């Protein structure tokens, strides 16, 4: 790809992207924890019961 067709993000754009990426990562981790703990608390020991 020729150089003239590419553009480098500015420092501000890179900084903003980093901030968004961190926020998405934290939100995903929080969501996984919430779903895991919520499932265990809601179903209790039944979460491990499954038909053979």
């Amino acid at each position: 790809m020729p150089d003239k067709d590419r553009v480098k993000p500015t420092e501000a754009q890179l900084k903003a992207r980093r901030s968004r990426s961190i926020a998405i990562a934290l939100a995903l981790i929080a969501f996984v924890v919430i779903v895991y703990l919520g499932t265990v608390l809601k179903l209790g020991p039944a979460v491990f019961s499954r038909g053979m």
Partner: protein
Amino acid sequence: MALVEREHMKEDAGRLSEATAGDFIALLKPRVMSLVVFTAFVGMVLAPANPHPFLALISILAIAVGAGASGALNMWYDADIDAVMARTAGRPVPAGRIAPGEALGFGLFLSAFSVGTLGLMANWLAASLLAFTIFFYVVIYTMWLKRSTAQNIVIGGAAGALPPVVGWAAMTGSVSLESLVLFLIIFLWTPPHFWALALFKEGDYERAGVPMMPNVAGAASTRRQIFAYSVLVAVSGVLPTAMGFASLSYGAVAAALGVAFVWYSWRVLAAKGQDPALRPEKALFGYSVLYLFAIFAALLCDGLVERFGA
């Protein structure tokens, strides 16, 4: 890979975002969200149920995210009028930091996730009520009523009044008369709150073409209606005691807060806008925010004493 991470095609250059995580948080209208969380939490505490605290916390989170999603969808749709009002021109979409499509996608995504999470972790009645609240705020209020009738915030106020009902439903799986009284307090509080704001921001709404009551019916009529609604707010505030689900102490606090509300609105009515700085209107607006927090804080204390007290 390096191309994707460090460099972009030129045609995309104009779309490289400088929006930070903070801008996306601003889309959620955190101040409105805090009021939603608080009133929903009070609904949950007053509800006669004892779910696991963590499941209650997830319900509050889901309601908060649902409220934030409506805020994002509202900012997506209203970007044109937000741009011409001084109060809202700095919001992420009109300021150009977030593209309208991003706000739309963000709002829809959070709506779906909040409703789904509440349904799975609490119950589907609460999730349906949350979905209805988002729908009512975005479609009925923002897209339809806001630009077409002076009764916009009267009817639209139902969306802001629903969170305690959603909270109650999340805990009990039902909707009761008690939760509807909480709804009524916020519903009746909304017109005097927003019309006081509209009286001292009349020019803003006029420029944006939003038919708020002062622009349509005139300031004098708005002042009379504010007073009438304030009396109704004061009466609705003591209903929990009158109906027997709050104590006499709460009733006394609510009555005092209600009398002060009527007094502030009386000052607005009596001043007839003669104060060039519109201080009575600003004072009523400030007090109305305090009133709602105080009345729900009083209900919360009452509920906690009932639940854990001697």
